[in-house]
């Protein structure tokens, strides 16, 4: 009976739950789904992580390769993020060149890395003007059940913390790089940007961590990326219903609490990992 109503009038079905301040999966309006993170699962990558937000699953693999630094910034390396949304994760995507959602997500991750200064690009430089590290970050969505941006940001951060770069010395005589695989060091992660996404319903109600169904029914979305000092790296609101300043303030306070939850989870996971 309820399933029939849901198919015919999905928005009304949702409104019935929202009136009681809860959602069909039993969560409250400000509650996140169970978050789990797994670090270092990909042996062939220099750093990797797997993040699950309820059913949404994103895996991030980072490979470090050599490259020439850009001519306008000879003492900086590169970080190249790429988000891959394949037909594997959702019926909405087709195989072939990246669609709009994947491109927007890749651009979002690139902006977060740039704005939050999570790593100093100068740390990636080996020999100014000649050699630098290029970190290729591949984020692959294995299951799309909404809130892809939060999962991607978290996966990227966890993977970056897991990356170990070998020591490189440039031989003066041959001008070739000599890689010492036995001596590896972690990257210097300066800030921890964590994303919190909201969906706007009927122009007034804000719910946190939307599932795919909720995202389709929502009239707007908002993603806030905050670091540990409460500074905002990104306020991404791609259109949708209008929000007043007061509502934005509520979102900020929720983002601050979320940051604490996620940071605690990540610290626990890293502490529990055996040192190599």
């Amino acid at each position, binding site marked *: 009976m309820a399933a029939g109503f849901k198919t015919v009038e999905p928005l009304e079905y949702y409104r019935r739950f929202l009136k009681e301040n809860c959602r069909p999966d039993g969560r409250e309006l400000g509650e996140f789904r169970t978050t789990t993170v797994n670090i270092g699962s990909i042996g062939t990558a220099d750093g990797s992580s797997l993040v699950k937000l309820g059913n949404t699953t994103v895996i991030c693999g980072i490979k470090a390769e050599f490259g020439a630094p850009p001519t306008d910034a000879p003492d900086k390396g590169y970080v190249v993020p790429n988000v891959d949304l394949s037909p594997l994760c959702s019926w909405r995507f087709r195989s072939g060149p990246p669609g709009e959602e994947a491109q927007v997500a890749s651009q979002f991750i690139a902006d977060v890395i740039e704005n*939050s200064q999570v790593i100093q690009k100068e740390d990636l430089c080996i020999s100014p003007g000649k050699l630098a590290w290029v970190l290729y970050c591949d984020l692959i969505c294995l299951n799309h059940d909404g809130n892809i941006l939060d999962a991607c940001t978290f996966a990227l951060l966890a993977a970056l913390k897991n990356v170990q770069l070998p020591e490189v010395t440039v031989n003066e005589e041959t001008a070739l790089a000599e890689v010492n695989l036995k001596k590896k060091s972690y990257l210097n992660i300066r800030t921890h940007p964590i994303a919190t996404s909201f969906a706007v319903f009927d122009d007034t109600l804000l719910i946190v961590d939307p599932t795919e169904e909720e995202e389709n029914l929502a009239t707007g979305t908002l993603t806030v990326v905050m670091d540990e000092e409460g500074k905002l790296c990104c306020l*991404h609101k791609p259109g949708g219903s*209008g929000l007043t300043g007061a509502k934005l303030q509520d979102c900020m306070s929720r983002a601050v609490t979320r940051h604490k939850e996620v940071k605690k989870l990540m610290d626990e996971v890293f502490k529990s990992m055996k040192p190599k």
Partner: protein
Amino acid sequence: MKQVLKESLPTNGDTSVLAGVYGPAEVKVSKEIFNKATLEVTLRPKIGLPGVAEKSRERLIRNTCEAVVLGALHPRTSITVVLQVVSDAGSLLACCLNAACMALVDAGVPMRALFCGVTCALDSDGTLLLDPTAKQEKEARAVLTFALDSVERKLLMSTTKGLYSDAELQQCLAAAQAASQHVFRFYRESLQRRYSKS
């Protein structure tokens, strides 16, 4: 089908964007939505081929337009907005938003409100600069672009670059809301001029 070309307002430093709106017109069956109009936005940069950054901006502009355009009045049709960057001297996204809105109004597309784009820059000592030039944007600590609607000055779209605090965000939003008055007045004046001639 109405075809209209509209030039946007040049901000300080002459950023200008040409906007064209085509529609409501036929839509491909694969893209058709049964109960409302399909909105498409294309942004062409001044030089080079459109890339991922353009796609991201197109998505922002399209979602902003979708929030105000009454698509339900024209189901199974398409409304296309084409934006061509003529010159970029800072505050480009805001200029694109303004051009898109005026072009939609000129084309007679039914909308529930008008919207305008405002850019704020925060420099290293926290001073707020509205409508920054390209040089000011580069040197700023943070650049925030907002799209505000005309009815209640609510925030329709926001995209930011750089680090800033919560209080600074509220400050910029308030300043943008005040500045949007000028933009809406400009819309009204230019539309009055256009329709009083004919």
